[in-house]
């Protein structure tokens, strides 16, 4: 009798053990995925566009090219995919992205509408947001975040008035409250503050191939205490330093002696209430933009129709039109499979992943070796797709 009860109990335990929710999709046979690249009006498909099919957990990824008719057929197992198509001609780069495409026991046919965009003159060369270790002291550090801009054109560019910001939501693995029916809004929700390079128009020239360093937190020599960090106490740095709006001295200490007061960033508007500027440590989106001539950015941001409220939150953001964007980079959290795009394909069709935080790792744009040789200065790759254009580097480029 006891044995029977034990047996029954064991059976129940077994049944309970098997009563799992199971996988959201089971591995089955391969599905046929047809991707057709649809070009903007006036541009005819010539074939050879790169189609990348990436399973979001990173298990499988394919790269194929379209045929002469602009389409390609491939076989993929069940999964959730991010599909990007990119191409370029002499004038434009073309990009299209489809995020979170569920393929489960069915053949899928996709028309990908390519958006044309121009390669920019000023591009983001490096984003260092992940922080580093305080070694040999204990702890981790992230008040040393910086971004490097680069003049990728053959002309002198002026940084004066160039605006920048980070988008809502701060982190790529957070639910994106702006997505409605799978679509991003037609504006960029710049959260917290709109920052700008100061100057009257020609104060800050950037020669072809030159870099400009922007210290988003402390413009000091961080290596004095933390040898794995970087020295941002330098005369050419643009520093975010405003003791009225960002008074937190841990994140915004008094700039180092070499930093010039003329290079403090302007704050066009601050809609957030934090006392320090926040750039996600693991997955920010960073955008550079400029108001078109005739639009005063300070007046523009004040209007309440340009200050939408983050759905699900009380915080307001500034809505920046997409065509104002000079360059934008999407960073994904390498430790998450729930990353969601915040930038449209015209700005950044892909994303670069930051695999680890607080390890001094940084995200760098690749150099275009052939163009650099041809032009005689460092030319960076710019296909408006950071999956292609960027790579993750072990240490900050400014680390010495």
């Amino acid at each position, binding site marked *: 009798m006891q044995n029977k009860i034990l047996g029954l109990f064991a059976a129940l335990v077994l049944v309970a053990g098997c009563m799992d929710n199971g996988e959201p999709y089971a591995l089955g046979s391969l599905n046929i995925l047809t991707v057709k690249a649809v070009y903007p009006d006036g541009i005819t498909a010539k074939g050879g566009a790169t189609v990348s099919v990436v399973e979001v957990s990173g298990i499988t990824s394919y790269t194929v090219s379209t045929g002469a008719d602009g389409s390609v057929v491939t076989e993929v197992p069940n999964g959730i995919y991010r599909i990007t198509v990119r191409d370029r001609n002499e004038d434009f780069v073309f990009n299209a992205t489809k995020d979170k495409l569920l393929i489960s026991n069915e053949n899928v046919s996709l028309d990908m509408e390519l958006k044309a965009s121009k390669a920019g003159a000023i591009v983001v060369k490096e984003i260092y947001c992940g922080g580093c270790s*305080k070694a040999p*002291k*204990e*702890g981790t*550090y992230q*008040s*040393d975040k910086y971004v490097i801009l680069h003049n990728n054109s053959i002309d002198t560019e002026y940084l004066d008035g160039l605006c920048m910001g980070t988008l809502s939501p701060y982190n790529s693995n957070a639910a994106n409250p702006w997505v409605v029916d799978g679509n991003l809004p037609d504006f960029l929700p710049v959260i917290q*503050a709109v920052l700008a390079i100061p100057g009257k128009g020609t104060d800050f020239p950037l020669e072809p191939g030159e870099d400009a360093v922007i210290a988003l937190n*402390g413009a*000091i020599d*961080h290596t*004095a*205490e*933390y040898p794995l*960090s970087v020295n941002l*106490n330098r005369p050419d740095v643009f520093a975010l330093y*405003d*003791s*009225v*709006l960002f*008074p937190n*001295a*841990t994140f915004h*200490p*008094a*700039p*180092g*002696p070499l930093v010039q*007061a003329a290079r403090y960033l*302007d*704050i*066009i*508007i*601050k*809609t*957030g*209430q*934090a*006392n320090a500027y926040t750039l996600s440590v693991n997955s920010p989106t960073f955008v550079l933009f400029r108001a078109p001539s005739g639009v005063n950015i*300070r007046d523009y941001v*004040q*209007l*309440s*129709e340009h*200050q*939408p*409220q*983050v*759905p*699900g*939150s*009380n915080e*307001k953001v500034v809505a920046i039109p997409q065509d104002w964007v000079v360059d934008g980079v999407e960073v994904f959290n390498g430790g998450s499979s729930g990353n969601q795009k915040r930038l449209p394909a015209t700005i950044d069709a892909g994303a670069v992943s930051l695999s680890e935080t607080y390890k001094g790792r940084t995200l760098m744009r690749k150099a275009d070796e052939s163009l650099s040789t041809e032009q005689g200065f460092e030319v960076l790759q710019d296909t408006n797709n950071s999956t292609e254009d960027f790579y993750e580097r072990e240490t900050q480029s400014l680390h010495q």
Partner: protein
Amino acid sequence: MKKRTILIFLLILLAVVSAAAQGLEISGKVLEAGTDLPVPGAIVRLDNNYLWAVTDEDGKFSLDGAQKGTYILEASCLGYVTYSREIKVKGDLTGLVIRIAENTLALKEVVVTAETSKDNLNTTQKIGRTALDHLQMSGMDGIAALLPGGKTINPDLTQNNALSLRAAGSDAGNAAFSTAVEVNGVRMGDNANFAGMAGIGTRSISVENIESVEVITGVPSAEYGDLGSGMVRVTTKKGRTPWNIVFAVNPRTYEVSASKGFEIGKGVMNVGLEWANATSKLTSPYTSYTRRGFTLDYTRTFAKVLRLEAGLNGNIGGMNSKSDPDAFSEAYSKVNDNLLTPHFKLTWLLNKSWVTNLTLEGSVYFHDTRSLDHAYNSHAAVLPAVHATQIGYWMADALPTTYYSDQVVDSKELDYSASLKYHWLHHWGAVKNVLKAGVQWKADGNVGRGEWYENPALAANGYRSRPYSDYPYMHTVSGFLEDNVTIPIGPTKLNLMAGLRYENVFVAGSMYNGLNILSPRFNAKWELSKSVSLRGGWGVAGKLPSFYILYPKPEYRDIRTIDYSHGTSASYIYYTQPYRMEYNPELRWQRNQNAEIGLDVDWKGFKIGLVGFSNITKAPYEMGTVYTPFSYNIYQVPAGYAMPDNPQVQVDHQTGMVYFMDPEGYYVPSELKLTDRSFAASRRQENGADIHRYGMELTVDFPEIRPIKTTFRLDAAWNHTQYTSDVSSNLYRDGWSHSTLPGRSYEYAAVYRGGTNVYNGRITDNVDANLTAITHIPRARMVITIRLEAALLRNSRYTSDKAFTVDDKGNRTGGNIYDGNSYTAIYPDAYMDLDGVVHPWTAESAQDPALQRLIIRSGNIYTFAQDGYSPYMCANLSVTKEIGSHVSLSFFANNFTNARPMVTSRATGVSAIFTPNFYYGLRCRIKF
């Protein structure tokens, strides 16, 4: 002076005492059932506290001077089941034999649930030792599960939960803060707490040393003050007992305790010691709570008429996170939870024609909650730490780059209380009258050193020390008068009670000195027959303010005005706008207006209690904020000034101008960058919106189902809570930028009626029901209870009388906010500009881009949607088995089926689990 007055009063009382009142004698002896051995030290009472006597070595007692009448005769002794019956006294009653049975599971009747008290006119639940043992509570917060509709929480001493009664899980109206807890008559003090009004945590009370708990949720007697929604009275073990050794364990907690009641001379000394250690996470045992509870209670009766109860209860323990390898090395935090409550009670049985008993009570309550945070700090640069307390511009102290800091919050509440109570019982024919009166003095204060850093130079930026002992004591003098009359009307009996309590607060040097409140209280009970009675009550109870309200935390506004690096260091100058103590001349006492009506039926084995209640918390204390505009200057280092490694500077404290010495020895002034204007916040005491609570409570005990030796108990509660706030809130968004001027602060502060959310009210309804099956097998000396706990209804909705619907762009759409399909918003009622002028909000304001930012829009479209959850339930199992008369084993398994249903919010669609985790524990008690 006060002392002398009291002495004279006592002497006069003594002088007036005349010869003993003529009366009848009731005498007999108390024997142990079964053995017929005498029970010494048992207390025999007539009508609770009227006439009383303590049995001698032979178990004999004698109550002299009783009047003719009907009484409840009660005999009780620790470890025995209390004997109680009604007797009619017409002449002398001698040779009474009362047999009381030892409290074991071998008895026919055992109570492992809360019992509705029959003696009280209001709703009072009594929880005895057997129930506490059987449910294996390690903290007092567990008793909430025994109240109608209550829910079990897994024991966790790392949480310091406060009790709140009839609050349905909502702390609106400071429900926990206004729940009074008394241990042996000593009020657990929380009034001298500077940190908040979360209510008094109960984990320092050793449950093992408790004999019984009384929970008063109805209109309390006028004897009790400084409370709101209810009161919990704890009595520790008093009387001769054998050794009781208890070992208890559950995954997070270990407990060991020992207690005994010794005979010392003609008195009895109860000693109880308990050690408990609890960790919050199994994976990290480094953060733990330790309790070393002790009780020392001495009882003795002198000359048969003077009974002394004196004791010392306390705890030495606290939270400690020392040596956690997951934290920074050497960093730790430690919070004391040391408690000491010496107290005495002297009851003098005079039994005269004008007085029955006089009671003198005194107590001291000392609670040390000192906390120490030994923290690791490391920064990349020299950082500022401003600690100025005067208005003006000051050079901030420089913090080192890497250091350990020791932040201390030394709070030591030390309260004193003394009271004298008069008690007189008299019969006029069949009418019985009990008159009670008393005066009480209570002093609440904090003798802690307050908030400080062990090394003031390492205090965090903006930190100001705050010595608690500088704040004066709050003295309360109160008096009460209460009459309780029982009138037989034919076969029925009417019992009426009316009381009045007056409390006056004295706080030296405070603007709130002299706050007072008069609280009338009425209760009535009509016994229609032996099995049916009706009762009802209405009363007001006032809650004293706490030091959190009386003495708001000083808040300074510190603004960086200029800073500069030099060499490897940096200097910072701050403008400090000091705190201004606000006074609200309209501040009132928070008070509760309680009413209830109940029906009790005891018929054919059914015991039914049904009570409807209304509980209105009026003018609950809350902290508000007022804003005052001010201006300050921002400077920059003069252009071209070559900063030396150690610059000589002078700061003009009035203007903020900094003068830098140049190599020639001349001072160069800093350059004015801009003058900014902003608002400084000061906290102000306020009264919030009235909270209306009403509901019903039901308990049904079904007759025993003999063949399976099982009784069922159903307890259920419906709770409704509702409020609509009209109280204005001020709001300034620190950190926003000016709408037109670059680099400056936002220029408006706003006033919102009903708070700074789009809603200004909320309605919640909860229905809870529990069904307990109690199987008691006396021959096996075993009790098994299975309790099904169900949350049948969870409904809530935010309300507003001013919100309107808006579209995505913030334009008014004219929809119904309660449809829950659009965003909603509110306008401010007024706004203040930087000159301190308050402007009413107008239609034009809504069109002004600078002011539009003051419009508050909901974050979600479902803010006002009907919210709630579908029902969920789980089941708990408790087993107690006595092995012989020395060993008792208990086992519990909470949520033993591991029912963890996800229930989905109707408004948000977000799912959650509310049933507790599967949890279990074991307890072994050895008695010898």
